[in-house]
């Protein structure tokens, strides 16, 4: 069922980028129930479903990941405040903001590297504080700017980290590592027994992406993953990520301060400013948004980029 659902989702997305749809999670299956716009507005499936069927019940929730009025404070310093967001399967939500806007904090609240001070974060309808943090993290891929590869492990061992923690049989781990390294464009045979220090930055980040995908997680978290790469490698990685996203139909949250990257990667862009959500917009809507941070980010783009997006 999941695979079929993924195919439908792709079809719709490719047919018309402005199409929106809602999914109901029936007791035993998913159903694509509605599409297009609602009341002249492009709605996210969640808002649309709420309008139609009222507040979702637990388990009926359409968004895969939902922030409900989330706040985080460190001591007396308020880092995040009243954050409400939804992310669907197959979607990449970009958290865009300046340094210190709280975007990385928001990301870390999802897999409980940090604990929210107020509000709640739901994953597939379940409050993440009700889940065991270890089990929760083993289902979520995580990619950071500094790679975070284990320096004393070979590439293959690094990629097999999560399968190993989940006690997959060795044979399946090896098979999966081969598959993954090929998928991210590194030849399995040529890199499997090398150490991270022997690889270039781009190759290391490919290994890190492969590692995050290893157990086919339903959710991927990216914290400025391509910030340390040269622009050409960065572009390649972005394109590869889009392909992998379509292939895996995974929900992603992607933190960046690079507006061009946000436009290239995101299905929606959430702009954070001083710990508050300023606006959420699709890349094409983003050019109409008039909020200060969004406008400031936009003003850093080259004029022809803007023209290309507007057309």
């Amino acid at each position, binding site marked *: 069922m999941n695979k079929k659902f993924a195919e439908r989702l792709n079809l719709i997305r490719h047919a018309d980028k402005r199409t929106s749809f809602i999914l109901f999670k029936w007791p035993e299956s998913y159903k694509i129930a509605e599409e297009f716009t609602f009341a002249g507005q492009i709605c996210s499936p969640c808002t649309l479903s709420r309008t139609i069927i009222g507040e979702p019940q637990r388990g009926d929730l359409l968004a895969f990941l939902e922030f409900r009025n989330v706040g985080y404070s460190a001591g007396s310093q308020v880092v995040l405040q009243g954050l409400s967001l939804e992310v669907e399967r197959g979607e990449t939500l970009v958290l865009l903001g300046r340094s210190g806007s709280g975007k990385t904090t928001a990301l870390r609240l999802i897999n409980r590297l940090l604990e929210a001070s107020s509000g709640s974060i739901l994953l597939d309808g379940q409050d993440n504080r009700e889940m065991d943090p*270890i089990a929760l993290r083993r289902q979520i891929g*995580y990619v950071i700017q500094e790679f975070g590869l284990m320096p004393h492990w070979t590439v293959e061992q690094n990629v097999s*980290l999560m399968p190993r923690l989940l006690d997959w049989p060795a044979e399946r781990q090896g098979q999966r590592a081969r598959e993954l390294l090929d998928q991210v464009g590194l030849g399995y045979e040529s890199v499997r027994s090398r150490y991270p220090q022997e690889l270039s930055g781009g190759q290391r980040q490919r290994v890190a992406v492969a590692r995050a995908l290893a157990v086919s997680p339903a959710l991927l978290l990216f914290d400025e993953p391509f910030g340390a790469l040269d622009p050409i490698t960065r572009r390649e990685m972005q394109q590869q990520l889009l392909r992998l996203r379509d292939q895996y139909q995974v929900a992603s949250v992607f933190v960046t301060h690079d507006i061009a990257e946000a436009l290239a990667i995101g299905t929606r862009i959430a702009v954070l400013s001083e710990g508050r959500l300023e606006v959420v917009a699709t890349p094409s809507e983003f050019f109409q948004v008039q909020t200060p941070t969004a406008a400031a980010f936009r003003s850093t783009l080259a004029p022809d980029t803007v023209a290309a997006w507007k057309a």
Partner: protein
Amino acid sequence: MDPVVLQSLLRDIVQLTGEHLFLVGVSSFFAIVIGVGLGILGTRRPRLRSASVTVANVFQTVPSLALFGFLLPVPFIGGIGAHTAILCLVLYSLLPILRNTVVGITTVDRPVREAAVAMGMTDGQLLRLVELPLAAPTIIAGIRIALVTNIGTAVIAAVIGGGGLGVLIFRGVASVDTLEILAGAIPAAALALAADAGMTLVERKLRRV
């Protein structure tokens, strides 16, 4: 030189080297267990870390001869003999091991630790799979320093009846017999050099990984 005297000297050297190794071996074993154990606990509990490092520091600053003297009158744990000497040597070699364990673990790269935790390692797995392997060369370096110092310090054990190569040295000093002094000092120095070379080898092997 009288062959009978020479023979008895050689016999002494062999026996006292054995005693010396016993003192060093037993005390180093306990120092490693306690030092590494406290070090690991200290990285989990910052208050324990500063307390244990402070205490180990204090022992290190007391002159070794004085430490042996202090323990002599203490009931149960003190007194004349090898056990008091071993206790002194443990206290004396604790600091480098403890400190290097803490430093080795806390200097594991933040992103490495963060990725390990974020992918769902438990604290035990983080320690066993990431922190200890990466800290191993630093911990071994601490053990090397402790071991080499320990071999030198164990000479003083003779003062409180703990035996070891110090017996020959102190006897030689008392009777102004250079040969006897050398008979104690040369094996002690050789032991220290051998320990240093051996541990350096282990350390280098670990660092390459």
